């Protein structure tokens, strides 16, 4: 059964005819070819597929595209400024070597963007708790934690 879904992705209206079972992440990766959102597991554990839906971090592998009807979706491709300048959270990951292979990174950044809104100056413990649903196998989390602490402060305009 084919269904039509419409939503905004990175500020642009999109609509697609999809099988009802199509996951949001499949729409993003396969139909829209926004391949920065990754799939690292099939059990909603790893968080590599995290995007913002109406400003809130969600795992795009665990909802079907229909559930995002009318929503405003932000993926990693929409985070930097139009001129290519990195968002302060992205810049913090670069400055603090918060990524290695880069596969979990988009999910980490998207989750951090949501987290930082309510935590302008987070503690190490708060950041670690916020990463419960995002797995990284490369960094030992050390520099991810530092990146998110720095990125959150930068977003809040703190030095």
């Amino acid at each position: 059964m084919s269904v039509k879904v419409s939503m905004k992705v990175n500020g642009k209206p999109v609509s697609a005819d999809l099988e009802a079972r199509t996951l949001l992440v499949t729409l993003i990766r396969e139909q829209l070819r926004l391949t920065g959102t990754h799939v690292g597991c099939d059990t909603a554990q790893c968080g590599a597929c995290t995007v913002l839906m109406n400003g809130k971090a969600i795992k795009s592998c665990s909802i079907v595209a229909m559930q995002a009807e009318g929503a405003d979706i932000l993926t990693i491709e929409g985070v930097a400024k139009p001129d290519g300048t990195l968002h302060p959270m992205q810049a913090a990951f670069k400055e603090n070597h918060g990524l290695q292979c880069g596969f979990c990174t988009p999910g980490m950044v998207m989750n951090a963007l949501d987290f930082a809104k309510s935590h302008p100056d987070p503690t190490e413990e708060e950041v670690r708790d916020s990463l419960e649903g995002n797995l990284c196998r490369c960094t030992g989390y050390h520099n991810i934690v530092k990146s998110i602490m720095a990125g959150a402060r930068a977003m809040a305009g703190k030095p």
Partner: protein
Amino acid sequence: MTASLIGARIERKEDYRFLTGAGMYTDDVALPGQAYAAFVRSPHAHARIKKIALDQAKKSPAVLAVYTGADLAAAKVGGLPCGWLITDVNGQPMKEPPYPPLAQGKVRHVGERVAVVIAESLDQARDAAELVEVDYEVLPAVVDPAKAKGAPAIHEAAPDNACYVWALGDKAAVDSAFAKAAHVTKLDFVNNRLIPNAIEPRAANATYSRAEAGYTLYVASQNPHVERLLMTAFVLGLPENKVRVVAPDVGGGFGSKIYLYPEDVVVTWAAKQLNRAVKWTAERTESFVSDAHGRDHVTTAELALDRDGKFLAMRVRTTANLGAYLSTFASCIPTILYATLLAGQYTTPLIYCEVTAVFTNTTPVDAYRGAGRPEATYVVERLVETAAREMKLDPAGIRRKNFIRQFPYQTPVALCYDTGNYEATLDAVMKMADVSGFKQRKEESLRKGKLRGLGYACYIEACGIAPSNVAGSLGARAGLFEAGEIRVHPTGTVTVFTGSHSHGQGHETTFAQVVADRLGLPMESVDIVHGDTSKVLFGMGTYGSRSIAVGGTAIVKALDKIIAKGRKIAAHLLEAAEADIEYDRGVFKVAGTDKHKTFGEVAFAAYVPHNYPLDKLEPGLNENAFYDPANFTFPAGSYVCEVEVDRDTGATQIVAFTAVDDFGKIINPMIVEGQVHGGLAQGIGQALTEGCRYDSTGQLVTGSFSDYAIPRAADVPLFKLDTRETPCTHNPLGVKGCGEAGAIGAPAAVMNAITDALGVKDIPMPATAQTVWRSMHKAA
């Protein structure tokens, strides 16, 4: 003159694309008209295939083909080869049973591929795969390596399920030393099986061009040239020049993406049959059952000491689980990369190690971050710490008493260490970790109801297996060199091609630092290309922490040739003798004068050779080099771990972890620290959280991230790191490698800390809260 780029904390060139979603991993590659493969996998650990019914699957919508082992056999597709021949204690070659890409007659582990369905869409392929009916006769399975020998045969070629029994060292001399020893420390333990779990699942996307009679395979691989060599020469019998293998951005490897896997072979073969691109990406559950696992040793280890704590001899017996088939490098991990490391940092004069490698009905086991060296370090460092406790000696003191202090040092287990300074890293780590304040911290913990423990690990690593001829005499079926090429463009910018592969290590930055520094160029003027057999001249790839020591050196050798030619060009331009030309970071200068030419001017002259010695010198500036190291490199370090154990729950928290490593010269300290962090987390994962479990029928019980706990952010602390530097003596950069150190040293440090806290001799890994709680209650 600009500041040196060697040792500079330069932000990574690759980060912008990863941070903006512009990375290109294998699953991101969309080839025109690609079809999708879904594999039908065995639900049984050991079974005879009585019948496979494909009719329903073939009739399913949009199915293009369904293939089984019979189709591959009819097409004369070979089995997967093993890259290292081990010769057993009787001089006989190891047992090498066939490893067909799709099962032939029998399945030997859960997750083995039985058939492949290829359809227009992924959902259609998966739906049709559900319709393949396989009639199995289930056979008894064995999963425990200790029980493999008496179990029903898994392969005809190995009736007792043993692949080989191998030994290193003088057994009689070791036995005699034990008979005379004042003290013997003995431990029996399991080095737990681990599942690598790079966050990017394995993937392959192959296409065939009739016009070019050639294949292109995109694959998540750590070594695309090796993948091509194995696939063309041994499995598919294709001409190597007609196969291009591309390993684009790869989302972590940790060893698991070194190997040639059946899925890669099947999609490549199928691409020609269907004249279509065929794509496969593993689901995480498929990764759990089909990526090569790591470790899985059952060991009895003994250390003989004199009454002062001097080590006299070591005796080790290990049964290593190879799983159901021989993966690409499986055979050399529990032998060549294990027993040879048992001297550790110590002068133990006599060592004997015997390894029985067995087949079981489990996923194949191969190299996983550290690969043999974590297992060896665990043996040595658990023995040393336990011996100190039994003899009431200071654990740091007993190590100092036995440190190797003179180099080069020939160990009794074949390796010759070129350099090291073990005292320096131990001194530094003890100071940084404030070992002298531990007693007070322990009392404070006790007041909170927590048991505090401290553990050391002083590890040695051997990186960059070499030289090729020695490796060959030990059974390696491949060379272990690396290749590099420097292509200077007419305007003086540079593209570097390396046979090393980066899947997180940051080669695009580190290697560019080496080249830019030597040529006096800004970082933006140097680009690194890797991972494509059509671009890179050759490569052995990245594993065993070899990239900077072997791949980096190949680049330096090519740079030497560039500068040698540049010197000739500069001599001509400057009307001076070649011998009078001095070179320093981008400037060719006539000695004793201010006459000079920049690297850019020389490059331009090479490509616009108007004023150029064409009678003596070819135009252009492009050089390559192959480098085969004279020896391994030997990074080493000292780690101190402090834990707190909750007396009520058994939950263990790492409250401090301090690591001081000696990696020789360091090119980019920021990247090196990141490698150590990641290695430590994987080592801590092995010690505390990662428990691979099979039930007695061979079902993988821990087949998802819900059941198999790779460390999460809250499981690890902020690490305290430092380095000491004794440069490697046999490569021009003085580098040793840093990729695996953390995973090698951490498990022993953590377990030494937990056993210290609990006051017990041993406790199995992973030391989960339940395991620790049970140990406390057994002890009480």
